[in-house]
């Protein structure tokens, strides 16, 4: 192994060192780009420069799936293994890729320079089966040749966007990135100008009046959150955009960032002005490298044009955004785990209370909003809360983005007013089931969701209607399954996802996700034991009722919903463990 040249790292450490521990993830990303992985002396140098304990540096490296502490291949290929991609043949792609690597290695054409890894949902569900090749997204991998894939000639995917309205997605789905000029031509940053002429209180009041609730899955009233932070006397406050989109089946934030990044920035700037923050963070998941680069360019453009920085648009308001990358951890989408990650720690969720509005990032009052929540802000200011409320239903006002994937003719991102039926979304917008196939079920809300069946087809997509039907809206994810799909296989993949992504902090989730996965394996292999259904229910209830954060509390949600719908799938198929069928 070549000697590690620490001199390469010095410029990075000189720049990041003074920031201390919060710069840990940026420093590790930079180090990994230089060395291909994070060798021990490099990790030690990073720890010394940031003045933090080495055991903690190691703990962080080992927590995030995208940091490697041992040399890895020059090219890492991530193949998605979650439902939408697996149904489109991702397992086969993975197998073929591995065979090709082996064949080319034997022929001496490559020498351990390619590594194929199974990955959690990559947020490319409308392009299933999807891959990342060294961070670059590749769509429909089953239709591309091996040579194109590894030579980097594979085409980059462009988003598929449709719907009844395009208030949020006006600039999306056009096969291009909307730059600053394009965004301004479509009325972009006019709402910011309007906001700066208003009092912060008036903006908060307008957001409250609009009835906007968070689009990340928890549906907390956005205006109430803002009001709490705005009212705080703390001199330092923060605003954070949560772009750590990783719920299997979700890709809406990716599409918005990819096609119209400035809309996200405008929402975040208005939020900061309304609550009195001068520093904002935008945290994007590690797998979204392309989108990270798009945002980086957009932030630079906005700064150049005076939408960020000091005296924004001639006002007395100063604000800037720091862009942060995750490193492969679904749990960091949980708001307090995301703060920990920005602070340079393992992504462990915090005990709540205290809540982020009083003790958030760096212990300061913090507003944290999802990407989709924030892009509603310019719209609310543009049309006013009254007109905004005309969209959707009375209890669920406004537009909503739905990520539809799986066995439909046109998987994609669809913008609709709240209140349209599931049938309309699936049949009229997404093209219905693929020819010759029938609807079996749909997973609402991703891995943390629940199954809808035939009787739910006419349910209206609003918070109140779905609650009444016992279905979660979540972040607007719908994965559709036709009659050929094995629900046991889908559940196994969801079980694998949670066992992989549990942070390990609280006991119910740390062990429950593993036990759940083991039982789901038996069920998928048609060798369920007597009592397995009860075991799943006990583990499920315990995780739901006693876990520390939302991940654990929803890790059994889909399984429990499947037990209610299809109890026969969980019946015993053998009488004793490892004894074969009885």
């Amino acid at each position, binding site marked *: 192994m070549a000697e590690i040249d620490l001199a390469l790292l010095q410029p990075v450490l000189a720049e990041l060192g003074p920031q201390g521990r919060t710069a840990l993830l940026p420093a590790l990303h930079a180090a990994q780009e230089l060395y291909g992985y994070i060798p021990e002396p490099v990790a030690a140098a990073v720890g010394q420069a940031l003045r933090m304990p080495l055991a903690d540096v190691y703990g962080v490296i080992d927590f995030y799936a995208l940091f490697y502490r041992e040399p890895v291949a020059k090219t890492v290929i991530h193949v998605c293994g979650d439902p939408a991609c697996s149904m489109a043949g991702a397992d086969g792609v993975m197998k073929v890729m591995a065979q090709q690597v082996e064949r080319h290695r034997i022929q001496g054409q490559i020498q351990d320079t390619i590594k194929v890894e199974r990955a959690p949902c990559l947020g490319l569900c409308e392009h299933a089966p999807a891959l990342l090749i060294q961070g670059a997204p590749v769509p429909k991998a089953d239709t591309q040749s091996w040579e194109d894939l590894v030579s980097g000639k594979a085409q980059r995917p462009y988003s598929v966007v449709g719907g009844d309205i395009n208030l949020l997605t006006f600039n999306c789905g056009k096969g291009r990135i909307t730059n600053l000029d394009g965004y301004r031509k479509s009325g972009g940053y006019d709402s910011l100008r309007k906001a700066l002429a208003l009092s912060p209180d008036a903006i908060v009041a307008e957001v409250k009046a609009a009835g906007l609730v968070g689009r990340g899955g928890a549906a907390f009233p956005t205006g109430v959150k803002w009001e709490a932070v705005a009212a705080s006397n703390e001199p330092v406050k923060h605003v954070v955009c949560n772009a750590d989109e990783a719920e299997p089946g979700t890709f809406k934030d990716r599409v918005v960032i990819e096609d119209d990044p400035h809309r996200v920035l405008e929402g975040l700037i208005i939020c900061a002005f309304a609550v009195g923050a001068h520093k904002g963070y935008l945290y994007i998941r590690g797998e979204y490298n392309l989108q990270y680069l798009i945002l980086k360019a957009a932030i630079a453009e906005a700064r150049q044009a005076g939408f960020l920085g000091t005296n924004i648009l001639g006002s007395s308001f100063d604000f800037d955004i720091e862009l942060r990358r995750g490193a492969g951890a679904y749990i960091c989408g949980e708001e307090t785990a995301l703060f920990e990650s920005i602070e340079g720690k393992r992504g462990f969720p915090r005990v709540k209370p205290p809540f982020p509005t009083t003790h958030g990032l760096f212990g300061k009052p913090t507003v944290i909003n999802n990407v989709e929540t924030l892009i509603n802000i310019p719209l609310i200011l543009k049309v006013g809360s009254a007109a905004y409320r005309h969209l959707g239903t009375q209890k669920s006002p406004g537009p909503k983005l739905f990520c539809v994937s799986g066995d439909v003719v046109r998987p994609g991102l669809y913008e609709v007013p709240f209140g349209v039926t599931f049938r309309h979304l699936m049949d009229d917008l997404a093209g219905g089931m693929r020819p010759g196939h029938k609807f079996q079920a749909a997973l609402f809300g991703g891995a943390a969701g629940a199954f809808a069946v035939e009787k739910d087809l006419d349910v209206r997509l609003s918070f109140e209607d779905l609650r009444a039907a016992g279905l979660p809206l979540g972040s607007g994810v719908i994965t559709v399954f036709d009659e050929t799909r094995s629900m046991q296989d889908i559940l196994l993949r969801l079980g694998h996802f949670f066992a992989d992504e549990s942070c390990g902090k609280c006991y119910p989730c740390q062990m429950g996700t593993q036990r759940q996965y083991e039982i789901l394996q038996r069920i998928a292999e048609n060798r369920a034991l007597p009592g397995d259904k009860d075991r799943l229910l006990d583990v499920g*209830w315990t995780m739901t009722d006693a876990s520390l954060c939302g991940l654990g509390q929803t890790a059994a949600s889909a399984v429990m919903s499947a037990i209610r719908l299809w109890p026969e799938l969980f019946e015993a198929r053998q009488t004793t463990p490892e004894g074969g069928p009885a």
Partner: protein
Amino acid sequence: MTDSINLTIDGNPVHVAPGMTILKAAASAGIEIPTICYHDYCTANALCRLCVVEVEGARTLVPSCVAKVSEGMQVSTHTERVKRARRTILEMLATTVDLSEAPDIQAYMREYGAQDERFPEAEQRFSPVLDDNPMYIRDYSKCVLCWRCVQVCAEDAQYTHAINFTGRGFETQIGTFFDKPLPETTCVFCGQCVAVCPTNALKPKRQWLLEQGHSPDEIMSLTRTERRRRMRREAAAEQPATGGKS
């Protein structure tokens, strides 16, 4: 400012000081709530969730070690919901970790009717005994991840920061920087981690050697050699510096 909070625990009226946790309030009323990770002198992190209780109006169960009392709160510490969670947590723990030297947890298992083989074909967290220093051994097969050792090694006591976590989820373990032996870390062998370990995953080396069947004399000579070797190493390391001073 009220100087007393009124609540009920299992139907009994309780009056306690504001800011007190439900766990302490219950103890003051003679009601015992089981805990594993909680320790009076360590930061409570609500990890084991054995201390969960039902609070009227709360969506989920509430960890009593960190949740504070509030006026009019109605707490139930032993409902069916609570018992189901405690029993299942204990059953999962028994199939994950070697609890043979954790009598308190075994007593809880009996109390809650938890079966130690509830989960067949369950993966155990197995790890070989780490014997890398003359003071104590680390047997992480017995580790329940209560975090106490990591905390006393850091801000809860010693500020040594020799250990932290490795892996994540079910694979989480306690470890050092790149899994180095303890003598190569910042560990000062203060022994606080050994003192707070609830399951004997951390154990004084002499005790461990005694249990292995070594006689006290053997142990004396074994550890003496190690001590001498270490003293020689340190002396050798200090020599140039001392030489420079004189």
